[in-house]
């Protein structure tokens, strides 16, 4: 299943993880990431699902017609059997963290907003991947790509990533089409592209740039970050709602519109899913209250899932 959200059972034990409110209250993004990754790795040993990795090396019996270059001769020496060794260079894999910096990401009905959550998540992922010796890059975008950092594995790369993520939301509207096309043009090598956004755009528009990315053999993961209020639109009194991007005002009585909101929201999600499923792009729904360790875990399980993206 490509579309996933965090399991309820895991959320219930959220108290075991770092308190997000406290975490977000700390301004230092590096500290936040460090704490999450530390907590995650500590928890990892307790977890029954240990032993997985970002890179999955695989031995396959050699078949006639395979390239003989791929035969692992060392293993042949030990076992006297021909095995093909695949993904030999996984450790040098490149990953781009693409973070939405549009105005809508600034919305938050709780103590912190979506962008705060999104960049903490991005920093956490970056630190986690760097610790696995992967090359990590970062891209910030609103209606176009505003910051670009090529994926590398070198000293100070994490600091550079943090400097990009530390910038506040300056953009106006979310336009995923143009940034994704830019990314596709800029990223030459096959990479893992993690897009963190609220995806409040027409899903049909995403089809073409995502297809483009997939056509260039990139792995794509979508992490949708939503505020709890965006899920159910729970409010008790009528308010004048102002769109943070278009600044359009609309008088809304939550009691009257809640049902239709939910209906439209679900329809949007389904449409998004319908776009992503044929492309084999995993899609994770996150709310800003979800523990980051769990998100990390969920991300990794997504990577493990048979999406078919590995086929090269």
């Amino acid at each position, binding site marked *: 299943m490509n579309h996933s959200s965090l399991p309820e059972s895991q959320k219930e034990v959220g108290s075991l993880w770092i308190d997000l409110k406290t975490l977000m209250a700390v301004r230092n993004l590096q500290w936040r990431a460090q704490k999450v990754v530390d907590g995650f790795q500590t928890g990892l040993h307790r977890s029954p699902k240990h032993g997985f990795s970002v890179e999955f090396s695989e031995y396959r019996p050699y078949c006639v017609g395979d390239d003989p270059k791929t035969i692992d001769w060392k293993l042949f020496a030990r076992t006297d059997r021909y095995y093909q060794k695949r993904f030999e260079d996984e450790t040098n894999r490149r990953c781009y963290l693409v973070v939405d910096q549009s105005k809508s990401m600034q919305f938050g009905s709780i103590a912190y907003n979506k962008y705060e959550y999104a960049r903490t998540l991005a920093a956490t992922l970056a630190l986690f991947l760097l610790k696995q010796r992967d090359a990590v890059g970062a891209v910030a975008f609103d209606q176009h790509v505003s910051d670009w950092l090529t994926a590398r594995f070198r000293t100070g790369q994490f600091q550079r990533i943090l400097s990009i993520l530390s910038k506040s939301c300056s953009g106006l509207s979310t336009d995923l089409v143009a940034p994704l096309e830019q990314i596709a043009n800029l990223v030459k090598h096959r990479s893992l592209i993690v897009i963190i956004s609220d995806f409040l755009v027409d899903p049909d528009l995403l089809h073409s740039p995502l297809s483009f990315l997939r056509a260039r053999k990139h792995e794509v993961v979508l992490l949708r970050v939503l505020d709890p209020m965006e899920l159910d639109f729970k409010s008790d009194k009528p308010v004048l*709602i102002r769109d943070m991007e278009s600044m359009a005002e609309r008088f809304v*009585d939550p009691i009257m519109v809640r049902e239709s*909101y939910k209906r439209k929201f679900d329809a949007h999600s389904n449409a998004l899913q319908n776009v992503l499923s044929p492309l084999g792009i995993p899609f994770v729904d996150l709310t800003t209250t979800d523990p980051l360790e769990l998100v990390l875990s969920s991300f990794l399980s997504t990577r493990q899932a048979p999406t078919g993206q590995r086929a090269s």
Partner: protein
Amino acid sequence: MLSFLTPLYLLAGLAILAPILAHLVRKRPREVMDFSSVIFLDASPPRLTNRNRIEHWLLLALRSLILLALALAFARPYLKTLIEQQTSAYPAKERILLIDTSASMRREGVWEQAIQKAKEYIANSQPEDSIAVVAMTDRIESLHSLEHSRQSGISERKILASKSIDGVTPTWLSCDLGQCMLQAMELLNDSRSDQETKTPAEIAIVSDFQSGNPLDSLGSIQWPQDIPIVPLVCQPKVPGNATISILPRTDDSSTAISENTERILVRNANRSKKDRFSLKWLDSDGKPIAAESQEVFVPAGQQQILVLERPTLESNGAQSPLVIELDGDDQWFDNRQYLYRGKKQKAKAICLDSKKRDPKDSLWYFAVRVPISQPSLDVQWEIFDPTEEFKESDHKDLRLVIASSDLSALWAQKLRELIENGLHVWWILDRPTGTLQGDQAGVDPARLEEIWKTWFPNDAVAISERTIDRFQLLQNIDMSHPMFSAFSDPKFNDFTKIRFWKHRQVQGLSSNDWRILANYDDGTPAIFQRPLGKGMVSVVASGWQPIESQLALSSKFVPIVVAMFEQASPLQQDPDYRCGERIPSQLALENWQSIVQQQSDDVGKELRLRDPQNDGVFIAPGIFKASDQEEFVAVNLSKSEGLTDPIDLEEFARFGIPIGQPTSPSNQPESVSRKNQLAEQMEASQGGWWWILLAVSIFAGLESLIAAWRTRHWASLSNNNR
């Protein structure tokens, strides 16, 4: 019990919906919330909050109270007291509805109006009222009596009264409005005679109130002031009307009318718009006799008499009935007149006088020159010499005998029988009696006395010649006698120019038996008469020829001779039968059939009698004929029906009759208006609305205070929030 003077204002109480709605509608929020995107949001209109969400209950209650109290104040509430409840019962009224069914109601549009107004009147009456419905012509005919109405249930009264009108149609009779009103008033008085406190009463009259209706009888009594009349006037679609009538033939010699002419009176109503008409004769089948018709111009409000030659139509040797019709009038009902001039009867007058004398000295010479024929009677003079034989055949049609002194005893004997059967004999003693101067021999008085004895055997009279100095005049003339009644007017009663040179004296007249019509100057009777059997014997004591007196040459002579004949044979007018008149006894029991009538659907019907015993009247115009008789009868509409100009209703006030207003839904009955008055008085005395206004001002003050406090409160709260 709480009542309202103007309850409609209570509807204004609905205005409390306004503040309730205003409180229910949520105000547009002032705060603005930023949201990531509005693409999933529908705009929602301001909605009514739930009932439990009404804010500011106290303000709402006060505002509603203000509006309710204002509506209540305008509705003017008052408390019904016991007195008012007692007066609320409506006193039942006794009503008589007179419906004119005379011929003039046949005018176009009138009868429909009459039925409509009568039904409206019944419908607008109160259910408790008893209503009698009475048809009115020259008398009243009850269609639904007061007693019957009283005995029926309250719910049925109106229906029964209304039903009794159905099927009533206008008759051809005339209307005696005054008499009918009196009879209706008597009906009401009879009905209320046994009541201690008389119930209110009213007479409603549905009529065209034409000027032909006689009202004179209303002057004969004092109209009771507690019975008003309600005139419900029906007007025809076209106001004018022209009417014709055939004037009776008279023997008035001043009009140059021959026997074959008729005088037709054409009368045009005041309101007529037409003034040109034509008259034509029709036969009994309704076909025109002559191609041309007689044009006549009669301006509105005027009348004209036309002399028309009557066409002579004969069938089987007898005169045919005729119809004269007026063309060009809007109203048809009175445009035909029916005429039947029967065969002229023959009569005979005899002058018994010697023809041997010089005519200038004889009676007959002057007598036969007097025209004594009547319109329906052809009279012929015959002169007999007393020596001639008087045959049986001569008796026929004999009406008058004028005999001179030459009358023989034989003739006198023959005449006696005829006199006893009704003959009138004038015996003129026109010759001197006794021995005269010279060789002339006078009449033997003994012979005259013998003749006298023939007629009146018991009389002992002595006739002698009276010696006159110069002349005698007539005096003590009995002007009340038909002989002289024509001269009773002072213009004509001068008899001093008639001098009598000679006259006879009759002594021994019994004043009980003989009526003396005139005396001479000297006191001796000049003209006297006495009945004998059915007939009459009259004696004149002098002749009228110039040798005796100046009578024959005077202007009085012709009227006197005519009067002689009329006394013997009273003037027979042409029969002039009118609808509503009693059918004469000689016609009453015959089986009559109409020949010509105004309405085709009436043709062939029998001449109906309203009450065969004693109340037979003509009820339709036309020409009728009995199956076993040759003679016809022409019946015409009453003359008064043609006079259709409406009378001024003020006429009733002149007779002291109170005029009421018709009851209509907008015009409430008297008691209802009285009830309203009472209610107004009670409301005014209680003055409840002042107190309510006071309450309104208190509520308004409270509302202002609370609203002001709330405003300040919110203002301070919002300041603190900032």
